[in-house]
């Protein structure tokens, strides 16, 4: 069989060129892989969901006599299928895991300096992938059309509308008119969520991996001592493949258990769309934006040539957009001439590391603002939250910088002097 195929496709060449490629092993190198596994599970469970989901908001009579939207009713049907609720829950949890793993993967790349030349393009593609996964998760949120999901999505609709000049058009195209209300909104979000964004994700993930294979993975620190100048690692086939397979099975086992034990998004409890607004919180990766929207005062607005720059625009578009632009420019600012082959230790780059830690504190403080106004949290006032958001990240950055400088300065001089002297970022 192998010979028959080899004579026709020259598999041996593929084997020599790609399947024996050495991949370095380090526990922090598996984060991107976990995001990939989450994506695979999302596609598989998503296929199951599309087989039974009805993308329509037309009201139909349910078997129990209630008049319900077709989309909501079809989710109730999915939940009634054998393991239907578990598969839907697994889809939901995997979306969380994909965003979380992609974010941690980004932190690993950032803290180990792996975005530097020659990997600038793959850093940009990776940022795009994180953005795409978040947008994909958002477009899927309203599909069950329960009261909770619709209310949470309405906030996103408002943010899209807040873009000066083009906001209304952008929101109308994405949501098919007014949201909620338009009959076209679910077909449109459905098409974006199950077809276009996944296709884009598959293509971008493929490109991300191809570039990584072409440029070779960064080497862990120990490789520099063991075999300086050589590519260390285990062959893609069979060792790396076995590790990936085992990790994938572990992923499946854990998510299947979590999905079954903690059923996500119980639409029967949330109920169909009604005029009563439930107390909603967006998913955790949107909480920081949601928090910013709560504390930005309404007076932050002005108009230029009919374009309105309002609070939702600042909190929902400008702040995340600025972070994205800074991240995209990073490899072009933090440059150096020699190629980066080994990962950098975070402790040897106190400025970069302490700013990253400060940024994480900013996310945490803005997330805290998302809890403003909750029962029992009256002490979370707007002035206090502004102080926390401005002061805590600054202090954290300064303290961690000073700590790292004093703790690691001697070591860093001793170690990085050898093959690749980098600037003290």
């Amino acid at each position: 069989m192998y010979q028959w195929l080899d004579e026709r496709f020259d598999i041996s060449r593929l084997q020599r060129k790609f399947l024996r490629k050495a991949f370095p092993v380090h526990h922090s190198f598996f984060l991107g892989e976990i995001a990939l596994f989450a994506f695979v599970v999302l596609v598989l469970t998503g296929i199951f969901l599309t087989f039974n989901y009805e993308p329509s908001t037309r009201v139909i009579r349910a078997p129990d006599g209630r008049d319900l939207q077709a989309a909501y009713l079809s989710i109730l049907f999915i939940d009634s299928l054998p393991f239907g609720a578990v598969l839907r829950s697994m889809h939901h949890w995997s979306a969380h895991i994909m965003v979380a793993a992609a974010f941690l993967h980004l932190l690993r790349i950032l803290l180990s300096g792996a975005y530097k030349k020659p990997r600038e393009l793959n850093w940009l593609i990776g940022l795009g992938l994180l953005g795409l996964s978040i947008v994909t998760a958002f477009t899927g949120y309203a599909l069950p059309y329960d009261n909770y999901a619709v209310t949470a999505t309405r906030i996103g609709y408002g943010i899209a509308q807040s873009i000066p000049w083009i906001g209304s058009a952008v929101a109308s195209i994405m949501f098919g008119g007014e949201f909620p209300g338009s009959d076209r909104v679910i077909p449109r979000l459905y098409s974006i969520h199950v077809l276009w964004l996944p296709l884009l994700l598959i293509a971008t993930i493929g490109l991300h991996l191809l570039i990584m294979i072409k440029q070779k993975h960064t080497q862990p620190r120990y490789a520099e001592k063991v075999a300086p100048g050589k590519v260390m690692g285990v062959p893609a086939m069979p060792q790396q493949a076995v590790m990936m397979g085992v990790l994938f099975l572990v992923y499946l086992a854990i998510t299947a258990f979590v999905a079954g034990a903690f059923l996500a998004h119980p639409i029967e409890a949330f109920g169909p769309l009604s005029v009563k607004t439930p107390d909603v919180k967006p998913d955790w990766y949107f909480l920081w934006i949601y928090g910013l929207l709560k504390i930005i005062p309404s007076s932050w607005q002005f108009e230029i040539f009919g374009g309105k720059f309002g609070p939702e625009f600042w909190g929902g578009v400008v702040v995340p957009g600025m972070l994205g632009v800074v991240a995209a420019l990073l490899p072009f600012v933090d440059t150096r001439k020699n190629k980066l082959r080994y990962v950098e230790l975070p402790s040897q780059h106190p400025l970069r590391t302490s700013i990253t830690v400060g940024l994480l504190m900013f996310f945490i403080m803005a997330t805290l603002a998302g809890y403003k106004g909750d029962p029992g949290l009256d002490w979370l006032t707007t002035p206090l939250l502004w102080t926390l958001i401005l002061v805590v990240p600054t202090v954290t950055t300064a303290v961690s910088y000073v700590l790292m400088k004093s703790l690691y300065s001697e070591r860093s001089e001793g170690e990085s002097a050898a093959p690749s002297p980098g600037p003290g970022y």
Partner: protein
Amino acid sequence: MSDHANHDHDPETPEAHASRRAILQAAIGAGVGATLLSTLYIGAGLIPKKEVTPETEPLAKGDILVYGDGPKKGQPVNPANLGLGEQQTVAYPMNPKTRVVKDKEANNTVLLLKLDPASLDAETAKSAAEGVVAYSAVCKHLGCIVSNWDKAAQILVCPCHQGRYDPKQSAKVVGGPPPKPVPQLPIKIEGGQILAAAGFLAKPGKEV
């Protein structure tokens, strides 16, 4: 044969080459431009036109306010059933002639409250009737339905971002991010029903 062809119009002379390239570039440019323009025209079709049906007509003077949800959904609100200082009731206008409830237009959503008439300020009292006040229920911030009620403080609360409105003072914003008060709806009470005495005092719906 080839000699003859090359004599007058040698296609390989630099001038001929340059003009041929310019023509091709212009042709490609025009083609791409025309394609983009026609795509924009198709793309404009993605923005749905708003169609006005009897159910999406804006609220008008004389409309009867009916329950927006709950067991009595679609039935006229009886002001006697509103509890003094209790949580607001969400309602929609109903065309008194056709009896069509205009609940497909979000900006028609109204909230009703019964408050102590003496506690209302002069401006609010003008549009109230027997202590019943009506406001647009669509939050000015991001368009959520203002459906929570801080009973202790007698303040309307939007569940989305904790925007707070004081119903006794023309829904003045007393907390949170909303840029403006929700507009009041002047009402009158006739035969145990609540009627819109005019349209909303300002444009309802979120600020865009």
